[in-house]
């Protein structure tokens, strides 16, 4: 294997990513990169390919063609090393319903390879960051949607990954919860590279450094929220025009 020498500081580098399901072209030659420490908002109508892109970045699905570099490592050749760098919250929050919150997160910490002496302090830390103190000993199947989302987020940040991939982390939450989760993402995202997808445009200007809008598997627009607002009047207008 060739050691990759990189002079850029992009954490995620996606090159000519294409994904087909049978004859159906879902991602069409997608290329973009995310810089270290950047929070990238991923916008697009339903079925545009946001979730598919995220599933490929996290090595859940293989790409049909194209490549993804995570901190310079090709995910196809180094999937284990790349997976270790990523924390991922899928759209359907993946929780084992029969476990208690504490059991589940302890399991996540163990399987993520945290050493024994680090597990306890880290669990405590995550419990505070994600506001899980109240539900710590409750079974997961009794939790409200907001708390489920937080447990999912706790799962994603457990091993202090450099990269966070969050697929619609605020859907189905009430306005208070949305603000809470958004603040949480902002706090966590301070020293991490984050990609998150959303339908809530106000969220984008509140949290993101940069926005990518995709439609039919292609990038149709990108820029900072400020730039997009300037060029199109508002983010909503930008979204409407670019994804028509």
């Amino acid at each position, binding site marked *: 294997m060739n050691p990759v020498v990189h002079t850029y500081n992009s954490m995620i580098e996606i090159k000519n990513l294409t994904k087909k399901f049978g004859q159906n072209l879902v991602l069409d030659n997608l290329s973009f990169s995310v810089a270290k420490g950047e929070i990238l908002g991923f916008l697009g109508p339903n079925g545009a390919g946001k979730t598919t892109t995220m599933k490929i970045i996290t090595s*859940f699905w*293989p790409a049909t063609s194209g490549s993804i570099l995570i901190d310079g490592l090709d995910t196809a050749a180094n999937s284990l090393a790349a997976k270790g760098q990523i924390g991922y919250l*899928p759209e359907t929050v993946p929780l*084992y319903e029969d476990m208690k919150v504490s059991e589940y997160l302890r399991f996540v910490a163990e*399987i*993520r*390879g945290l050493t024994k002496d680090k597990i306890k302090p880290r669990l405590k830390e995550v419990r505070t960051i994600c506001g899980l103190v109240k539900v710590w000993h409750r079974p997961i199947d009794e939790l409200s949607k907001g708390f489920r989302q937080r447990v999912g987020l706790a799962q994603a940040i457990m091993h202090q990954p450099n990269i966070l991939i969050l697929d619609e982390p605020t859907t189905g939450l009430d306005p208070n919860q949305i603000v809470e989760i958004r603040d949480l993402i902002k706090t966590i995202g301070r020293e991490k590279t984050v990609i998150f997808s959303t339908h809530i445009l106000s969220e984008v200007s509140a949290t993101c450094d940069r926005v990518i809008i995709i439609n039919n598997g292609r990038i149709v627009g990108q820029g900072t929220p400020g730039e997009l607002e300037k060029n199109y009047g508002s983010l909503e207008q930008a979204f409407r025009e670019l994804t028509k």
Partner: protein
Amino acid sequence: MKKEYSKIIYILFKKELMSYFNSPIAYVFIGVFLVVGNWLFFNSFFIIGQASMRGYFSLLPWMFLFLAPALTMRLWAEEKKSGTIEFLLTLPLTDWQVVLAKFLGALVFLFFSLLLSLTIPFSAAWLGNLDLGPVIGGYLGALFLGGSYLALGLFISSLTKNQIIAFILGLAACFIAFIVGADFVLAGAPAALAPVMRFLGLGSHFNNIAKGIIDTKDVIYYLSFMFLFLWLNVRVMEKRSWK
């Protein structure tokens, strides 16, 4: 590296085993297994008036036929249905680690159930003169046969996200694998195929071991059977080729 590899399997295995006891499955399974098993044994025990477990071990494979797919049906199907598969397969683990952990979890659970059923040989030995050879062979055979059912059932579960389908197909597959070497099937099979079918059937190998004859040929057969379906399972996971 090697230690890390097995440690991950152990962590997952622990979680798998715990999930049996976190849900009613463990208690229903063990309850049904013990009640039906004891009933089958003692029903004929006093009629025959002989301290032998031969009848019991000839029925055990049929009981396992229903119980093993019941254990394995949810192992993959549920992960897919609830979406936890996305969590599991984006962890820095190999597919072998996950498959082995699930298999070992089910196997140890089955082993535990078999341990609880040891009351049967103990009471038989207490009531009469029990020949230990076939009993030990029977339990060993049960473990090999059960392991083979579990590997097959686990593989079937990896193909679907519907637990009911996983159960029914698992039951059918185990039934075919068990019956293919049975005498009454062989009687109707072409003469050239009969020895091959006898070798391939799970049942014919079980009968040998249950008589107390532990032949390496049978042991190797069972181990290869398990390996084959675990390997196929890994292939399915690698390709993400499920419905």
